[in-house]
């Protein structure tokens, strides 16, 4: 043991090994890996919760759980999926790829980066602990208010609401820290010659996301803190009896909540064109148009929040303003869609798993976006609002548009991260199972919503039985097929066919000039960009 084994004392030996490497690391790739692993675990946790819901909704009548437990499941499922699965996945990619793509040795603020990550596990515990304890009969469980915390219901709730409020605080701090780090990195650490308008699309997506996070997370933190003081310190922010207004909470919440949708999607809109150009073997079309569209969407996302509660009561001019401004987002979004399709047009396309996920993503996210356009209409929204139509719509944007995009990114960069090729056959199987079962899960929910089934009900009228059954069966297929994904990732990380540096025939960009996997400290010499 004491013999000198380090003949070539290079950067590989500069860090502690074993568990201490992961606990103390400030390395962007290690932290990125931890973010991604955390996200995958929470994706499975949140997914199992919703399978509990779908099992209960498999047929009419209450079979498995009482309504209160059902409400806890839906709330915790949403919070976990949004804050603990999707957001950390995007941050994980940012940590891994942004320094590689812009030719930086690491993130600008590595210790902040470490802290940003280590806030996540405690908040995940805060989110799930009351729920887990309730399973063993201790306490009254997690928040049963849905992820939106609407008062006065959340003021009635038990200690689970306080747990969720603190979890949101921690997750918010983590996101803001991550955002500051990304902004500083992008502004200060780009390789010589890489102007902002030469920056990779993914970096642009994240830059705008980071600004949105910094602008909106404090509003959410403020809103839930007001809720906390209403619950315990006798304030009446949201209580009419003391001069407050429950609807004010909805304004504050959705001032964060609507941009949040774009916070989840903008990073994906960043790397989707990169994947498209790789597998079309042709540079992305309309780089500038896409950048300006991303900026426009980011800016518009914070002025449309009230379309989430049209039915809560608003003056007519406000209704019209929020309707028209919401519809206007379709303009820059359409520009993005046309650029993506033009990138593929007359390319030389091949369909490896990342490309399959990307093409599927464009189609399914298109459905999510178009149904969103319809939802903007105030009058029709009276019908859609809080019905299963909305559930289907936002799963098309957040599962198809968010998670399937993330999966495309995982397959695209996994060989670069691990140095091994994943199993292509399993990847393709995973795609087809996911795409088909996803549609079979959520298309019936559009019809359920139109026919009049409200969301968040534990039991339903018999006329809704068939569609719910189809939806439940498909949801289980969807859930189980994610195990293929997990297996594929683990086996790729453990070994397999060596990946080349470029990995994909059409891949271009600084990250593909490094070895696979990249050295512990990415660029020992700063590259220059022409």
């Amino acid at each position, binding site marked *: 043991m004491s013999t000198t084994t380090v003949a070539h004392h290079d950067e590989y030996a500069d860090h502690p090994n074993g568990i201490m490497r992961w606990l103390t690391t400030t390395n962007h790739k290690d932290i990125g890996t931890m973010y991604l692993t955390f996200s995958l675990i929470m994706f499975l946790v949140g997914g199992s919760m919703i399978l509990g819901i779908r099992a209960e909704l498999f047929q009419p*009548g209450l079979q498995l759980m009482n309504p209160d437990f059902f409400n806890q499941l839906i709330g915790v499922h949403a919070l976990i999926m949004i804050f603990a699965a999707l957001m950390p996945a995007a941050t994980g990619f940012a940590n891994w790829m942004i320094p590689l793509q812009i030719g930086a040795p690491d993130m600008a603020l590595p210790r902040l980066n470490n802290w940003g990550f280590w806030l996540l596990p405690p908040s995940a515990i805060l989110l799930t602990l009351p729920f887990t304890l309730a399973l063993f009969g201790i306490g009254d469980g997690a928040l049963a208010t849905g992820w939106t915390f609407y008062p006065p219901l959340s003021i009635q709730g038990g200690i689970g609401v306080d747990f969720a409020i603190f979890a949101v605080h921690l997750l918010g701090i983590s996101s803001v820290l991550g955002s500051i780090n990304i902004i500083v990195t992008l502004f200060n650490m780009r390789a010589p010659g890489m102007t902002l308008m030469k920056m990779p699309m993914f970096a642009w997506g994240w830059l705008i996301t980071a600004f949105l996070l910094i602008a909106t997370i404090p509003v959410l933190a403020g809103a839930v803190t007001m809720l906390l003081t209403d619950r315990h310190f006798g304030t009446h922010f949201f209580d009419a009896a003391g001069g407050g207004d429950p609807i004010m909470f909805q304004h504050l919440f959705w001032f964060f909540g609507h941009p949040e949708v774009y916070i989840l999607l903008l990073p994906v809109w960043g790397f989707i064109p990169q994947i498209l150009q790789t597998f079309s073997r042709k540079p992305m079309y309309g780089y500038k148009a896409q950048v300006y569209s991303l900026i426009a969407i980011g800016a518009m996302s914070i002025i449309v929040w009230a379309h989430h*509660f049209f039915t809560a009561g608003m003056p007519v001019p406000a209704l019209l303003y929020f309707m028209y401004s919401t519809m206007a987002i379709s303009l820059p979004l359409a520009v993005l869609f046309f650029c993506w399709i033009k990138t593929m047009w007359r390319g030389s396309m091949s369909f490896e798993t990342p490309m399959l996920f990307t093409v599927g993503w464009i189609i399914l996210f*298109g459905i999510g976006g178009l149904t969103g356009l319809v939802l903007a209409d*105030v009058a029709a929204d009276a019908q859609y609002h809080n019905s299963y139509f909305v559930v289907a719509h936002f799963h098309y944007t957040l599962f198809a548009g968010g998670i399937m995009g993330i999966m495309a990114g995982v397959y695209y960069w996994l060989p670069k991260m691990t140095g091994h090729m994943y199993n292509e056959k399993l990847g393709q199987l995973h795609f087809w199972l996911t795409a088909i079962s996803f549609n079979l899960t959520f298309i019936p929910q559009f019809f359920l919503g139109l026919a009049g089934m409200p969301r968040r009900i534990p039991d339903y009228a018999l006329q809704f039985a068939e569609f719910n059954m189809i939806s439940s069966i498909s949801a289980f297929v969807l859930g189980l097929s994610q195990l293929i994904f997990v297996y594929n990732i683990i086996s790729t990380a453990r070994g397999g066919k060596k990946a080349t540096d470029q990995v994909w025939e059409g891949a271009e960009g600084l990250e593909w000039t490094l070895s696979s996997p990249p050295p512990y400290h990415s660029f020992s010499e700063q590259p220059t960009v022409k």
Partner: protein
Amino acid sequence: MLKQAMKKIGFGLLLLLTAPLALAEFRWNFPEPVTPMALDTLHVHNKFMLIVAVIFVVVLAIMIYSLIKHRKSIGHQAVADKAPSTATEIFWTLIPFVILLVIDFVIMGIPAYHSVIMMEDTRNESDMVVKVTGSQWRWQYEYMGNTDKGSEDGLIDAKGIKFVSNLSTPQDQVNGTAPPVDTPDSPYLLDVDNRLVLPVGAKVRILMTSTDVLHNWWVPQFGSSRVAVPGFIRETWVQVDKAGTYRGQCKELCGKGHGYMPVVVDALPKEEYAAWVALKKNEINEQAAGADKEWTKDELMEQGKVVYEKNCAVCHQVTGAGLPPAFPALTGSKITTSPIFDANGKYLPDSHMDRVLNGVRVMPAWKAILNDSEIAAVITYERNALGNSVGDVIQPAQVKAARQ
């Protein structure tokens, strides 16, 4: 010959495609609209859906064409996109921009504008006013009376009628201990004991509020959905143009009973509506008389059981076992077994009477919901059944006194 056969096949296919749509319209689209607002909503929805479907299909077709024709595996070589001239670029940016602008703000925007104006027009030309109050987990309806227009139109004035509407599906089905049963008159989870009754053809202004948390009064066939906010009044309106029974549900997550808060509305022709109003007013008079008389214990126990199972059993269970910790057991509870009145006949604070009248934490104040005889009956029942046997009897007069 071939042409005719093709025609027949084509016609058959068309029938096959449209038949399920026509037969089961309810399942694939909004349920049949019965108010002007719902009709308008359906038109707007159909129009928008058609537009987005066309956009989707066109874009998808272009994309699929490219996916098939521009594959590497059939040897297609990537064609470099040449930088377009400024004029071309401006042209190709402006054209889609204008198309989308027209779709968004003209084709979709103008009808949407009119729908909003119509939807929010709650006061003009209304015939009568009904107040809807959401409570965990039941609706309360109160007829606030006719407007001048309603009286001119000869509508009978229902002012003063006020009742609570509870889910009427048996508790054992709701709890999952018995299988769900659907009958045409009483569909599972969609039926109530007291329905809101409205006259056909009258424009009814609906005022909405709540006693505890947010609720949303929603009948899909009316196209109206409004959040009931505690401490505030929200408005909407309905004008049912077709007699019938219409069902909906609460649409805003309002706690554990959220799925068990149906809305049922009977729309009756004007004469039948007048008869219903007369009947209901008669009932109110009888109840007022009943509050003044002395009831026997058996009468109270009998009515108390009905009131208990309708209103209290949801939380405290049919057996009185409760759902701790939020809803304590009534069996053997300090509240249900300790005395209600002090030596002077005044009711004690924190007594059984106090709890039922004024509520506590998540339990509502029942004095706003039940009348004197109902409260007297249910307290008597809770003290002498559910495993309790205190033996005392509460009279409606005592409740009436306690209210003051």
